[in-house]
Structures are given as C-alpha cells and as structure tokens.
C-alpha cells in the first residue's frame, strides 16, 4: 500500500515536471535564440543550447529599427483606454442587473452572453465600412469596437461579483440614514473593488491580445499593436529568427509581469465568470 502510493506520487511528480517543462520550453528556447547570431541560427549551431557568440544585436535592431517600441506604446494606449471605459460602462450595467428588478433582465443577460459568442469576423466588415465613412481608419477609435469582445465578458464577471455582496449591507446603510451616493461610495465601492479590479485585469489582457480588428481597421504600421506588429515580422521576405526571438522576448515581458503580480485576480476572474479565452 505504502509503496504503491509512493509510486503514484512519483508518477504525478514526473507528469507535473514534464508539463512545466513543455509550458516553459518555447519561451526558454526563444530567449536563447534571441542572443544568437544569424550565422548560428541558420547554420550548424541552430540547436546549440548555449549561444556560441552571444550578441545583443537582435535587440538593438528590433528596438531601434523595427518600431517595436511604437507597437508596445500603442498597445498600452489601446488596452488602458479600453479597460477604463469598459469597466465604467460594465460596472453601471452589472450593478443594475445585480440590484434591481426589471422586465427584460434575462433577455439582457441572454443578449450579453450571445454577443460574447459571436464570431468576431461578423462585425469587421460593417465596422470597416463605418470607420471608412467616418474617417476613423488608422486611429485609436479602434477601441470602440473592442467593446464587442470585452464588454459582455466584463458585465458577466462583474454581475457574479456584485451578487456576492450582501444586499443587507446596503439596506442597513439606508436605514442608518445614508444617502444613495454615500451608500455607493462608502459601502458598495469598497466591497466591489476587488471584483472590479479582477475584471479590469482580464479586460486589459483581452484588449492587449486583440488581433483581428486592429489588422483590418488599422493598416498603417504607426497604429499597429503588439500582436499585429509581431505578425508582420513573419511576413518578411526571409524570416530573421534572431529578431523575431528578440521581439517575442520583449513583448512577453509586460504580460509576464502582469501574470506574476495579479495571478490571484486572474484565476478568480477566469473561474467566476467562466470567461472565454
């Protein structure tokens, strides 16, 4: 009995270690490649674990010649502004859904859920025409249609969080003579803050990773975000893997930092809302 349990534990450990290795390996390999020279990557040294002749030339080219910094800047602008307005709009909506009784509530929830299931491709054509007519192509207005992906998800997670705040607290505040605004600022906001924060992080990541709308609406490289700028490195005549590796390493850093700092919130957001990818 004892030995079989130990064997099982050993097996589990091997599986977990194998899993960790598979998850980390691509990043590790990209990181190693980013310090290799082109000669080494395309020559016999392609599979060296330690670069023969470590160089930071790839990083210099990517940062100063290929405009990856501009893409990172754009991504921050787009992701932060999307997060701010989506969280504001979604909080209002989720608060009403969670706290008030009204007709058409389940229709509204159903609608929110349905929109989150739409194939994104269905909105790109008409939105492209709309932006063309308004002269909004190649601008930061792209954050408005980002609401299709982020808003339903944000509403959904926030409703779950708001429902967990006991209604009794608000009622007793009211009995104690608090005004509506006081109830909101003194009771609801502090209690809702963790949920709102969780939703904000998930929204930020979703906006940061958006690809289709940016590639169709913002064709000028000045407005490319990280995922789109990265995809264009693939299109080049001969793929310079060293630069690709350096670019990938750089753009992974912001995501890595966010995951490391906010992993608890992310997991709670993912599991409470049954969020999509």
């Amino acid at each position, binding site marked *: 009995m004892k030995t079989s349990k130990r064997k099982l534990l050993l097996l589990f450990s091997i599986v*977990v270690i194998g899993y960790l290795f598979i998850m980390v390996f*691509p990043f590790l390999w990209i990181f190693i490649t980013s310090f290799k020279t082109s000669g080494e990557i*395309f020559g016999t040294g392609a599979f060296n674990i330690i670069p023969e002749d470590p160089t930071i030339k790839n990083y210099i080219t990517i940062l100063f010649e290929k405009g990856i910094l501009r893409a990172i800047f754009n991504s921050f602008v787009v992701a932060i502004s999307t997060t701010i307005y989506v969280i504001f*709009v979604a909080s*209002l909506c989720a608060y*009403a859904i969670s706290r008030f009784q009204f007709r058409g509530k389940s229709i509204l929830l159903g609608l929110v859920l349905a929109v989150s299931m739409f194939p994104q491709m269905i909105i790109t054509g008409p939105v492209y025409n709309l932006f063309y007519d308004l002269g909004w192509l190649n601008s930061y207005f792209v954050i408005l249609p980002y609401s*299709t992906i982020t808003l339903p998800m944000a509403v959904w997670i926030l409703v779950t969080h708001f429902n967990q705040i006991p209604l009794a607290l608000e009622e007793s505040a009211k009995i104690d003579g608090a005004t509506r605004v006081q109830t909101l600022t003194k009771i609801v906001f502090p209690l809702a803050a963790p949920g709102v924060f969780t939703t904000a992080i998930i929204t930020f990541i979703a906006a940061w990773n958006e690809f289709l709308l940016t590639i169709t609406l913002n064709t000028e490289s000045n407005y490319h975000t990280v*995922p789109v700028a990265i995809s264009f490195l693939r299109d080049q005549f001969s793929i310079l893997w060293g630069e690709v590796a350096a670019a990938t390493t750089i753009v992974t850093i912001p995501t890595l930092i*966010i995951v490391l700092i906010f992993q608890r919130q992310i997991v709670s957001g993912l599991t409470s809302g049954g969020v999509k990818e």
Partner: protein
Amino acid sequence: MKQKLGFNGWLYLLPTLILIGIFSLWPVIQSVTYTLFDYKLNDQQKSGLYLNERFNTDLFHETALYIDLFLSEDLANITNNEDKVRAEETIEDVKSVSAEYKGVDGVIEITSGQRNEIVRLYEDTKGIISELTAEYSLTHGDSLPLLVEDFNKSIIPSNFIGLAAYKEAIGDKRVHIALWNTILFTVVSVSIELVLGLGLALILNKAIKGQGLVRTTSLIPWAIPTAVAALMWSYLYDGSSGVVAHFFENLGLINQSQDLLLSQGGAMVSTILADVWKTTPYMALLLLAGLQNIPGSLYEAASIDGASKFKSFFSVTLPLLKSSILVALLFRTLDAFRVFDLIFVLTGGGPGGATETMSIYAYKTMFGQTNFGYGSVVVMIMFVCVAIIAMIFVRLLGTNLLDRN
C-alpha cells in the same frame, strides 16, 4: 427585496445598450444585408448596396468630356459632308445630355425616363462611332469605341442577388474544405485539451506542493497574445532551424523536418499542437476550480461505502464536475471554431488550403479580394454553426448558465 428599476435606473444600462447596439447588433444586421448583394468594394458598379438602378454621374461627365474632345479633333478627318454633320449633331447631343446633369456628382438615383435617354444616347453614339471608324481612319479610332462603352457602365444595375450567393456557397468546394478543416481542428484540439486538462486538474487537486508554481506557469501561455504564441511556434516548427521539427524528425514521427509546416497533414497537426499548448492550461485551471468546489466529505462517504478510487471518480467527481466541464467546453469549442490569429500567423491557411478555416477564408474573401458580399456569406455560415453549437451546450447545461446570476 430588490428595488424596481425606475427611469433613472435605465441610465445605468444605457451605455452598455448603446455600445452593444452599435458595435455588435447593428453590424450583424448589416452583414446579413451584405449577403444579399453582389457587393465588391473594388468594382465601380458593385461598390455599394444598390437595390435599384443608379447612375454614376462622375463617370458619365468624364466620358462625355472625352467623346466631345476626341470627336471634335477628328472632324477634320471626316471628308464626307453628310457624315461630318452627323458627327457634329452627336457632339451636340452628348453636350446637351451632359448639361442636364451639370453640377451633379456622385452616384444618384434616376427615373426610367432619364435612364432611357442615357441608353438612347449610348446606342446612338455607339452606332455613329462604329460607322465613322469603319469608314475613315480617325486619330482616336482605337479609343472612341472603348470610351463610348463607359456611357453604358455609368448606369449601375441593381446588384441585389437575393439568396444566390448562399446557393453558390453551398456548392463551393473551398467552403466545404474550410468547414471540414474548422470542424476537424475544433473537435481534435478541444478533445485533447479536455482530456489533458482534466488529468492535470486531478493531479493538481491532489498534489498540494508546487501548486502555486504550476498555476503561475499555466497562466503565461494563456495570457500572451495568440499571434505571439503562433510566431514562436512557427520558429520551433521551422524546417531548417526549428528545434521541435528537428526533434520530431529524430523521433521518426516525420520523414524530414520540412514536412511539419509544408505538408498538408503536418500543418494541421502543428496548428492543433500549438493550440493545445496554449489552451490546455486554461482548461486545467477552470476544471481545477470546479474540483475544489466538491466537498471532501463526499469522497470520505464514498470510501466508507466501499467505493474504489475509480468508482468514486465516475460516480462523485464526474457528475459534480459536469457543469464546470460543460462551461469550459462551451467556451473552448466556440473559441476553437472561430480560430483566426493562430492559423493566420502560423500557416496563413496553407499549404494549399490545408489549414484554411472558415474565419481565414472569410477574411481572405473580404479583405484580400474586397468581396464583402461573398465574404459575409461565409461568415454567416460560421455564425449559424456557432449558434447551433451554443444552443446544444445551453440545452445540456439547462438553465444553469443564466441561473448563476
């Protein structure tokens, strides 16, 4: 007791309703409209939705100007006096019709009387020009007959085609292949992810040690942009410098490392593997959360009743995990069915359409060939499939999904 939502309360909902209305619902209705038209942005006669005939005044004015100019220049070459008079009359005719639309530009609606006049002008001018070019050697003898055709083209026929595009799509081989590729990709990758994710979640639920590390590591593939992950894998799969391709070749899974991305089967396997790498951790996290909600006392009770580990998995774990599994499956299936970034960056749909999914085909049709009409039909087929998948899952879940809120 929850309050009733008054008029002011609706203000809470208004911004959401406006955003969803403009950027989600209106585009869907618009897309449905596109499918009924032969709508191509790069074709002068089809670049709008024309239920009725229209008249392109810009093209008409330009054509009239050149015909006037060319014919006037060629008057010297016409020796017969009678023909000369007829040519002059034609010039006057063109000028007078053109004058009726003076100051009008863009695409306008016209009455049938106006239409008949333009058609008459076209036919008359065409007749005379063909006679003259046959009779005399004109300076503009080559360009005039071509030019006069633009009179005809300035009348834009209705490009309403009803359901014809759907009919075309049903018989379109490329749609069949794309649909099959999408289904294959979805079914295979989601099944693998479910099995691996469930296994992983079960292990993690037991082994408390190192759970934090595993959780952190799992979140990274989920959190990085799909395009970045796809580019990373395209390097690992690369025929000459890719370490994964090299590894597979050494294992004997493929004949030569180039086969991975450049053979039809290899490309599909590669995209599925990349997707499994990126989303299995997400699946595992969702299922792990479900597992942790199952009270341990149930397992104790099962073991007291003499149930084996195996038995308690099937009669305690699975039934209680059912709704977690279904929710995870629903979102993963829909995501896999809509897959775009991963394939767009990794293979671009190639080689030879082997990994072309519905989204990729729709994107290529709409933004590659600017054929918004047919592209929308492809999207609409996808939309219907997504709706069917969603309905099946919502049925299976019962009212759980909405009840939770």
